[in-house]
């Protein structure tokens, strides 16, 4: 069996260095877009990279009262989860490095690793801001996860498969699913923002209340890894939504245009709203998000049942 290919896949492409670099690029684009929406000038192109290098070079401070092993391991686990997820999605519109039936579910759970790690990290430290932040992060996880999953389930049901690459191929030939399932698209994109704790769903790290939330005690390497992990999640999330709802990703150009358009939308949503309180977030997701997604799912199932 050829051993070169898996090594390349993990270290360079599509996971590893490539996804890290694209994470930084997408973070830059996101920050720049938000800045321009707010009539500011925004960061220069190397700012995310500079931030990362600065954090990696700094001393990692392990506070008193934490479980040190867990404290060091959590950021690594979070990043590892995000990097593994990159193996199953059509980055750059190419065929995923690995693919098997049901990899959609695996990918979604790998993406949730991040939030779980953040929650654990917050609960691990003695800091009061972290504990409140962790509580909120986990509360938010329970509220967006179900609607987000339901929203991605729609295309899966249409394609009749749990395999990301199959759904991607299925989407390419047909009418974009944003047209046939607009509700699913909205729920998916807003769910993605909740997952990434972007404003207005940033109450787990609301700086004006609880400083940096669960990551208050993190510094240096740990903080850097969490940040880059989140950037990677951003790329993967955008890829998934674009592949499912924007007519699939056929080639690198297709990938770039579609994900950047999505980023334009999410950046706009980020700058358009005031931060939601955690109770408002939960209410929004369960009362509106989940119900709408369920309703759409129901319609899809019925339609599909009729056609079969």
């Amino acid at each position, binding site marked *: 069996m050829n051993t070169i290919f898996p090594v390349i896949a993990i270290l360079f492409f599509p996971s590893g260095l490539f996804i890290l670099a694209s994470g930084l690029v997408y973070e830059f684009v996101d920050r720049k877009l938000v800045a*321009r*929406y*707010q*009539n*500011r*000038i925004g960061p220069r192109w190397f700012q995310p990279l500079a931030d990362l290098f600065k954090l990696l070079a700094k001393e990692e401070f392990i506070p008193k009262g934490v479980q040190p092993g867990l404290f060091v391991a959590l950021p690594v686990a979070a990043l590892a989860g995000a990097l593994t997820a990159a193996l199953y999605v059509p980055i750059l519109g190419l065929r995923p490095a690995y693919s098997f039936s049901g990899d959609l579910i695996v990918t979604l759970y790998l993406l949730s690793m991040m939030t779980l790690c953040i929650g654990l990290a917050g609960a691990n430290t003695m800091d009061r801001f972290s504990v409140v932040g962790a509580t909120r992060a986990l509360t938010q996880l329970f509220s967006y996860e179900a609607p987000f999953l339901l929203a991605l389930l729609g295309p899966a049901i249409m394609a009749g498969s749990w395999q990301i690459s199959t759904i991607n191929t299925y989407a390419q030939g047909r009418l974009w699913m944003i047209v046939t399932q607009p509700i699913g698209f909205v729920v998916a994109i807003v769910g993605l923002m909740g997952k990434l704790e972007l404003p207005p769903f940033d109450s787990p790290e609301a700086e004006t209340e609880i400083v940096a939330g669960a990551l208050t005690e993190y510094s240096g390497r740990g903080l850097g890894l969490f940040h880059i992990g989140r950037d990677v999640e951003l790329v993967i999330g955008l890829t998934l939504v674009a592949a499912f709802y924007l007519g699939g990703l056929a080639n690198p150009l297709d990938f770039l245009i579609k994900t950047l358009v999505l980023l334009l939308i999410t950046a*706009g949503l980020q*700058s*358009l709203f005031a931060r939601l309180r955690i109770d408002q977030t939960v209410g929004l997701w369960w009362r509106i998000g989940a119900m709408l997604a369920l309703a759409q799912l129901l319609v899809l199932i019925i339609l599909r049942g009729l056609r079969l």
Partner: protein
Amino acid sequence: MSIGAMLGDIVNSLFKKPATELYPFERKPAPEKFRGKLFFDPEKCSGCQLCIKDCPSDAIELITVDKVNKRFVMRYNIDRCTFCAQCVQNCRFKCLNMSNEDWELASINKEAFEVYYGKEEDIAALLARSTEECAEAPGKG
């Protein structure tokens, strides 16, 4: 009732130049009345010391070299100055004014914050005298 009331703003801004001023690269001229660094004209000074009396931060000091011939040296400590312009207001002979061009006053050494105004030979004499004093009594400083 609406959602996203600032949509118009953010879409507009996307096509507009950012409002950020690129300060060190683009330097906007200060307005005419701006209160920057204090300048002193020793020719007009009568040595009445009114400026010193009302200075809220002891930023100025007038050293009389020769009272009869009206030779004064003013020591101005920029780092203490609060730029309130009360001294300018107090001066009856208009020998003080605050510049609207000289306002980038940050410096990495303390010497730049001590400015002497007056005839050059007077300043030189004063500075020589103060270094002598320092040399005589090294304990003080």
